[in-house]
């Protein structure tokens, strides 16, 4: 069991291998083999996550694992970033969530994507997403988080645009949605990168915690109290925990030192520690010498701590961070870092102002919406903020901004979801809204509540998305059936390509996702209906389903933050989130009424039938999780439930890692208010939307009323958010691009610089060289020689008269000259 953490590299490796197999060999494999490889890889990762969980829940200490072959991953100058993985309660929570929900969605996809021509690629992408998401959560430093962050962004892009080749412009819309998601996320990535740069500059490292460092030294003291209480009550928590974890051991050791009465227990624990020390340190081998037991990090030099440990030391020492020309106090730097982290989280976790990509991301296949755009990837921002809770805890200003962003997002998302007709779009805006809840929880310092809501939300939002996928699947098949006559036997083969080509097949503008076409599906698709109903009630926060507990914990935390810490953000969060919770219940019940209740409003809904077991079984599992998921963290003072499930188990579990996690006690008033609001909203929704009120090409019931019509129109138009962005960002950007392209690039750069300066200058130099120099000097020389020769020869030519007489005279004269020359010596000597 002690060696389980060493398995953590497998959790990334297995899906990566699965992705490679399906990517390169998948085209040649059968659909069944592809599904088995993809789903098998997912389930194997889940098994690894379970083993890690069993290690930690058995009291194992957080471990930093160095995978083989990755030593010194990034070592440049004084930068030394290792590919290390951290097994602690926070990362394992995320791993369990990603692999557990992800495995169910893999199974579901095998049914949903059946017959798609790129079936293998879909599974390859899903596995690739797994690998990156697990890199994100398992890494022990911000750079690995960033690698995973970008990787899941890539997978998100690939999967949103998965049906890029659909007919009638739908494929183009899908591609645009994918591009939008990618580009909007780049804006957030800028924030994350800036935060990472600042972190590195400030601390000189990017590691969360160094090996051997204790994340939360107070965790021991806390559970000591718990253990004492447990002892007093007769339930031996320490015994149960096998006394193996360093934290528990440390604490127990201290306890033993302090109180002699427990000497026996201390001896046992010491022995256990010797074993543990050898395993955890790994380098000491089995020398048998027990490491000295530390209950805090005081023995570690500041520079050897991870970023969070260093931050705490620096805060104590009032450290000033040197930025070259100026210095900033560490508090200010932390505000900056967390602010830029918020920008990053706003991109990935779809917060205002960067949430616009998420509703469009529903262009992807529904399992993708469930896995990536509801349950896991979009929670990466929340995970990062909870991971950095030490920073956020100290940065009051950022925390307030985070709260405001979260609350606004929750309200905007919830409001817009009220007026949508597309079944997936409602869920998408609901996701935005719920992510706002989580972010607001981070803002008010309720880190464990944020994680709790993240987990429960993953359960019921994945359930709802998969349920909507089942509905869409049923509607498409129903529509297909009408379009091609009735009967089942002869249609079995054609069903295969239905999800992909349904739109191409049909002539009318039938939208299988429009809720106004649905109705009465509860009898056609009973399993989908009941699971969907559970998901809806869980999301609406109805007692005692999962959403009730997690939402209530956030509300209680914000109430307590406002009341006891005099935190303005707490009151804002409480008010805003209560309203948002009301919205949630209303739009979800509106959806259930429109989709499942009443009578069918389109023939397709009449012919829909239940999805195959590969799709319904994950629905059932997720429904069970949505019912019972909330019990992992029941408050201590409600209905004696803590006697059954244990109070604040999840918060205690997280506290080992999340330094500032704290549990909020149950606030009856708040809980009743939230519950009452939800029930009232459900009642209102069923009154308004019952009896098949919303029909295509007719006004929505809310539009009938003078008072509510403008509100509905505003919501239906999504608050004109995209239009505002279009006017504020897109158009100026386009205009600037046009200016740059037309004026700067074309007119200035091409026309002026290229044409005028370069081309004309070149011509001028060319002219200069060709005329005076080439023609003048070079040709002049050559021609001049020619002319000279011709002139000379013209003179010499005249000698040749052609008259024989001339030659004869010349000859004679020559003879005379020769004779004179011959005779000259004679004449001279004759003298």
């Amino acid at each position, binding site marked *: 069991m002690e060696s389980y953490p060493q398995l953590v590299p497998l959790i990334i490796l297995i899906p990566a291998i699965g992705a490679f197999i399906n990517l390169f060999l998948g085209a040649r494999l059968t659909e069944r083999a592809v599904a088995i490889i993809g789903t098998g890889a997912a389930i194997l990762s889940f098994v690894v996550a379970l083993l890690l969980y069993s290690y930690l829940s058995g009291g194992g200490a957080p471990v930093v694992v160095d995978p083989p072959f990755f030593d010194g991953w990034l070592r440049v100058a004084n930068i030394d970033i290792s590919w290390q993985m951290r097994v602690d309660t926070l990362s394992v929570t995320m791993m369990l969530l990603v692999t557990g929900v992800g495995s169910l969605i893999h199974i579901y996809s095998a049914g949903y994507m059946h017959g798609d021509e790129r079936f293998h690629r879909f599974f390859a992408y899903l596995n690739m997403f797994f690998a990156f998401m697990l890199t994100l959560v398992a890494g022990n430093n911000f750079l690995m988080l960033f690698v995973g962050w970008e990787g899941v962004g890539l997978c998100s892009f690939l999967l949103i645009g998965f049906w890029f080749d659909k007919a009638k412009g739908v494929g183009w819309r899908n591609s645009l949605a994918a591009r939008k998601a990618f580009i909007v996320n780049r804006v957030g990535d800028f924030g994350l990168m800036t935060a990472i740069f600042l972190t590195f500059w400030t601390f000189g490292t990017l590691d969360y915690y160094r090996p051997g460092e204790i994340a939360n030294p107070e965790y021991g003291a806390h559970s000591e109290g718990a253990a004492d209480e447990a002892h007093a009550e007769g339930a031996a928590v320490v015994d149960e925990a096998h006394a193996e974890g360093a934290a528990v051991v440390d604490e127990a050791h201290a306890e033993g030192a302090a109180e002699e009465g427990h000497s026996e227990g201390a001896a046992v624990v010491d022995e256990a520690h010797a074993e543990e020390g050898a395993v955890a340190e790994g380098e000491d081998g089995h020398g048998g010498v027990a490491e000295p037991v530390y209950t805090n990090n005081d023995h570690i030099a500041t520079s050897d701590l991870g970023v969070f440990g260093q931050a705490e030391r620096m805060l104590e020492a009032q450290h000033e961070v040197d930025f070259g020309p100026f210095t900033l106090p560490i508090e200010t730097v932390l505000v900056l870092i967390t602010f830029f982290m918020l920008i990053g989280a706003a991109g990935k976790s779809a917060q205002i102002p960067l949430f616009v990509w998420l509703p469009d991301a529903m262009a992807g296949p529904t399992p993708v919406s469930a896995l990536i755009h509801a349950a896991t990837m979009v929670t990466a921002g929340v995970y990062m903020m909870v991971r950095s809770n030490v920073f956020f805890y100290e940065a009051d200003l950022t925390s307030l901004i985070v709260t405001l962003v979260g609350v606004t997002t929750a309200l905007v998302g919830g409001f817009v979801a009220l007026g949508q007709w597309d079944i997936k779009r409602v869920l998408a805006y609901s996701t935005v809204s719920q992510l706002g809840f989580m972010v607001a929880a981070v803002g008010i310092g309720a880190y464990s509540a944020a994680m709790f809501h993240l987990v429960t939300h993953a359960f019921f939002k994945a359930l709802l998305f998969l349920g909507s996928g089942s509905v869409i699947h049923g509607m498409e098949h129903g529509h297909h059936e009408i379009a091609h006559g009735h009967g089942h036997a002869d249609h079995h083969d054609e069903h295969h390509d239905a999800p992909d080509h349904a739109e191409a097949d049909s002539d009318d503008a039938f939208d299988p996702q429009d809720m106004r076409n649905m109705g009465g599906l509860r009898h056609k698709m009973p399993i989908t209906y009941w699971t969907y109903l559970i998901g809806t009630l869980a999301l609406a926060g109805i007692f005692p389903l999962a959403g009730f507990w997690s939402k209530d914990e956030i509300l209680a935390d914000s109430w307590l933050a406002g009341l006891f810490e005099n935190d303005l953000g707490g009151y804002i969060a409480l008010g805003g989130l209560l309203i948002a919770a009301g919205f949630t219940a209303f739009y979800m019940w509106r959806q259930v009424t429109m989709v499942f209740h009443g009578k069918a409003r389109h023939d397709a809904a009449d012919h829909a039938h239940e999805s195959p077991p590969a799709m319904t079984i994950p629905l059932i599992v997720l429904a069970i999780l949505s019912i019972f998921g909330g019990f992992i963290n029941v408050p201590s003072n409600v209905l004696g439930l803590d006697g059954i499930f244990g109070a604040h188990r999840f918060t205690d579990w997280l506290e080992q890692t999340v330094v500032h996690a704290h549990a909020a006690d149950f606030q009856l008033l708040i809980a009743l208010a939230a519950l009452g609001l939800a029930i009232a909203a459900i009642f209102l929704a069923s009154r308004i939307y019952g009896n098949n009120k919303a029909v295509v090409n007719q006004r929505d019931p809310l539009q009938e009323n003078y008072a509510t019509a403008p509100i509905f129109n505003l919501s239906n138009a999504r608050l004109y958010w995209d239009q505002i962005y279009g006017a504020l960002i897109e158009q100026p950007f386009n205009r600037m691009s046009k200016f740059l392209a037309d004026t700067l690039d074309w007119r200035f750069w091409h026309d002026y610089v290229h044409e005028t300066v370069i081309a004309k200058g070149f011509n001028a130099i060319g002219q200069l060289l060709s005329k005076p120099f080439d023609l003048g000097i070079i040709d002049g020389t050559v021609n001049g020689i020619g002319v000279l020769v011709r002139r000379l020869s013209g003179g*010499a*030519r*005249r*000698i*040749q*008269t*052609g*008259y*024989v*007489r001339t030659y*004869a*005279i010349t000859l*004679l004269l020559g003879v005379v000259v020769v004779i004179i020359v011959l005779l000259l010596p004679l004449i001279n000597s004759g003298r």
Partner: protein
Amino acid sequence: MVQTEAYLMLSMVLFVLGTLGVLLRRNAILVFMSVELMLNATNLALAAFSRQWGSENGHMFVFFVVTVAAAEVAVGLALIVAIFRSKRSIDIDELHQLEG
């Protein structure tokens, strides 16, 4: 016995006459004859020197010159006939196609 100088004087006169004939006459045959005159003036000088010095070399030269002149006559007259055929004239001043 006639003095050698007299022969030489006669030879010189004949040579000059021949030279003037070659230079001044336009009739090709007359030019040709003037050339013969110059050759024979030379022959006379050679024969005179040969007698003066009692050497046979001069005579040998004379025979060669006479032989060559005979051949020359054959070639020269043939040329003149060919020129006459093409030009219908034997005026050498009309033969200046080689003018540069």
